[in-house]
């Protein structure tokens, strides 16, 4: 199920905000690996540093120190030109509020990464069809985002993140703006993509329900990783969910004690 080898290596990542007198350490030495084909979740309360971590991996933020290696390349040291080549083609993105361009149709939105990177449409025709069928969005391909439901919008966004067959998909609270049913539907689709196509997904969330779809979850607080949960082979999603809740409860108590 999980492929061999490390796809992404995060090494001692640190990120400070502010200036000399006032330093906020958002990431305080984070290290972990993401294996190929893994569905990794990152959980943590607000202000824990999980969004900063995702932004650093997403290359939209430069870490203060430390390295982010994607297939061995240190992408945190890339210049903007090389980064642009990575974005959208080697790395796919999913956002909480979809970020579809509202003056483009569904199809045009999905094809956007290919347009930007100058890929011939003929090569993508089949892929587009396949993704649209799988994500059940064929009937909204010629519609504008304003004519779609939230779930449809996020599935169009999923298609967009996958169209260029990236090494990894980074998802930032992808269920945050969806109702329960759409959220579950989306997570099922993501899981299937992960299992069938061995697509690596890294998802940041604070929703235990969404996190229970992951194969492994890292817990982050005050800029450091302090716990890890792995879903057992035999474990059902519901059982895994229970375990996550238990841990969160302990954590809540723990932090309350600290305070």
């Amino acid at each position, binding site marked *: 199920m999980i492929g061999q080898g490390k796809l992404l290596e995060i090494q001692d990542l640190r990120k400070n905000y502010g200036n000399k007198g006032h330093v906020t350490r958002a990431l305080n030495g984070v290290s972990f690996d993401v294996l190929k084909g893994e569905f990794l979740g990152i959980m943590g309360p607000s202000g824990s540093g999980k969004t900063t971590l995702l932004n650093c991996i997403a290359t939209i*933020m430069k870490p203060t120190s430390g390295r982010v290696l994607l297939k061995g390349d240190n992408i945190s040291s890339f210049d*903007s030109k090389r980064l642009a080549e990575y974005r959208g083609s080697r790395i796919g993105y999913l956002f909480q509020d979809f970020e579809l361009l509202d*003056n483009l149709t569904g199809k045009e939105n999905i094809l956007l990464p290919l*347009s*930007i990177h100058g890929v011939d449409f003929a090569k993508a025709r089949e892929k587009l069809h396949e993704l649209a069928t799988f994500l059940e969005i064929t009937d909204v391909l010629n519609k504008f985002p304003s004519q779609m439901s939230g779930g449809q919008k996020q599935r169009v966004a999923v298609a967009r993140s996958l169209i260029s067959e990236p090494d990894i998909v980074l998802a930032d609270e992808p269920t945050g703006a969806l109702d329960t049913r759409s959220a579950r539907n989306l997570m099922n689709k993501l899981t299937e993509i992960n299992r069938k196509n061995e697509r690596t997904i890294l998802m940041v969330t604070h929703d235990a329900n969404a996190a229970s779809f992951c194969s492994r979850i890292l817990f982050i607080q005050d800029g450091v990783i302090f716990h890890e949960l792995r879903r057992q082979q035999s474990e059902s999603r519901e059982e895994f969910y229970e375990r996550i809740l238990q841990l969160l409860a302990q954590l809540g108590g723990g932090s309350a004690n600290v305070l």
Partner: protein
Amino acid sequence: MFFKLIIRNAKRSLKENLIYFATLVVAVASFYIILSLEKQDVIIFLKEFESDAINKLLALMPIVYGFALFLLFFLILFANRYQLNRRSKEFGMYLLLGMRKERLILQLLAEGMFISIWALISGLFIGAFLAELISLTVAKLVGQGIISHQFSLSLTAIVFTVIGFLLIQFIALLILGGKLFYQEIYQLLNDQMDKKQEMGDVKGNIFHIFIGTVLLVIAYWLALFRFNEVEGFILFLALILGCIGTIFFIKGFGKLLGIMASRSEKKSTKGLRTFTFRQFQENVAHKYLSVSVTSILMTLSIILIADGASSILSLDKVYNRETSVYDFTVYGEKEKVEQLLNSEEMAPYVADLNLLEIGHMKRKGEDADGMSISMVDWSKLREELILALPRKERELFESGDIQGYTISPDNPDALNLLGILEIDATIPYLIPESSYNRLLEAVDEEPLNLQANEMVLYLNPDLLPMEQVDNIPVLEQIFKNAAQSKENLLTIDGTAFFLRPSVPMRGLVADRSIEIHSAFIVPDQVFEQLVNRETYETYWNFRIPKKLQDEQGLMMPMKEASEKLSAAGFGFESYLHNFGRQLFYVVAGSYTILYMGILFLIIACTVLALQFLTQMKQTKNRFLTLSMLGAKREQMKKSLRMQVLLTFLLPISLAVVSGAVGIWGLIKAVFIRIDNNPLLFPMSIFFACIVLGIFSIYGMAVSRTAEGEIDKLRWKTNVGE
């Protein structure tokens, strides 16, 4: 605190939004330029000769000013709306923090006034500078050294500029402030483009384009072929149809464009092409009304500028003295004038002195009804002229249906000649041969040396609408035939007279003291014999000596001679009057029209610019998303440049077509004359360059501003750094 905030915000507006500020400055400068017209050198100069006409022109200025005020009000409104839109989030924030709406609007008005003062200072400075520049250029260009330049600052113009500008700025801010008052904080905080996107069905769009094209074609047809019928109404109808047609066309075109963009699959992933087209489509289809209005304004602008420029073209007529010979004509007692002109004081200014004698021919008597009986019998000439008429006119003549005569450039020459002679030949003017010989001598032509039974039919080249009156083919042919067959075309008091062909025709006086269409030039003894002494008059004509002209130019000696003649108390006219009048037509015809034309163009460009930047601002997030998906800044800038180009190109393309038809129509209706003028080509290029120049400046400014926004893009913290 309140005051500090106002100043700080106003300063920031100036810095961040140059286009907004530039619009205000343009408005101020245009007001000043039109209001300070009466201080222009050329106007001051013309006031001396054509004070009535100039006063009429100046009386029109308040209307032009009012019209400019009206147009610029909308521009200011648009500019302010754009500026407030940019800051809506900030306003939302103020309100969220508990600022009262009344206070916010008060603050806006105060900021607006503060910026207005800056705009007024800069605008007046630029306006005064431009007015000086125009004044100086025009004086140098047309004045030939007699129009002196003087620095002038019109105080009334400044006062009215300030009042007018502050008024429209205040009203605009009040209207926008009122709108703000009714907006919810949520709307202010989330200022996004209207999310509603519609594809529009293909059929509907084609229908729109079809309707638009049909209306435009009808308007073009009216302008080209039906212009002279019920003039005003047809013009109005063509204008209305053209406007509606433009709106339909652009509406249909904008949407169709988007559909076309999504149809071509092959190219759909070629760079940001689809995105570019969709942005353009959004800009055009959703704002089709204002895009159409800019297109219409541009059309009007092109037509007005062409019209104004054609007036400048006729400037060479002002200097062109093909037919005019004399610089001065003095009237008064023959001997006294002669004495003055030969005096020591005047002599240096006098060359080719010529006494022109003129008078009516005597009458044979009166008939029973008291009508004059003429000594002239020109029935043979009349017959020949009728024969030379085109068939249609000839039939009218022969049936006796012709009631009166009009002399116009549209008539065949023979018809005009018939008209002139019917009116003049009963009691024609007589000019002695010697007078005309001296005139011919002055321009180095052969003297006439008329035989005792020979005469010349003089036709005044300044008043008759025919080209080259000294060589009218019809007349030449008739004269030649008559000479060959020894036939008499005309008799005076029973004596046959031969008509001398191909005599050069020149103006008899310096300007207009003698306004006659035709005269008979006869040998001196015939003149003495036939002239009616009661109508006998004399005019002294002279020219400024060539040598003096070479030394000082024509205008300066002319001015000096005028002063001396005035001092001596004689009535006189000079070529300056002629020059002044012609110049007036040019100035009146070009100044206000060019002003309006350029104003329209600037308004159209500003509207396009502001609209583009508003859309850009409202859809800023799209560019962030694009950069997340890997778009490079250069890629996005390229797309933006393309969007700007398309946004500007669409309305101007249509405007160029409509404008060309409009100009063509005006040429056909002879509103614009462009006969083979050597200046035509350079002048067209010059004004085309001005239009293109203004256009490109705006396009480039918008591109720059938009690209600047791209550079400022930040994804939460830092994109692509």
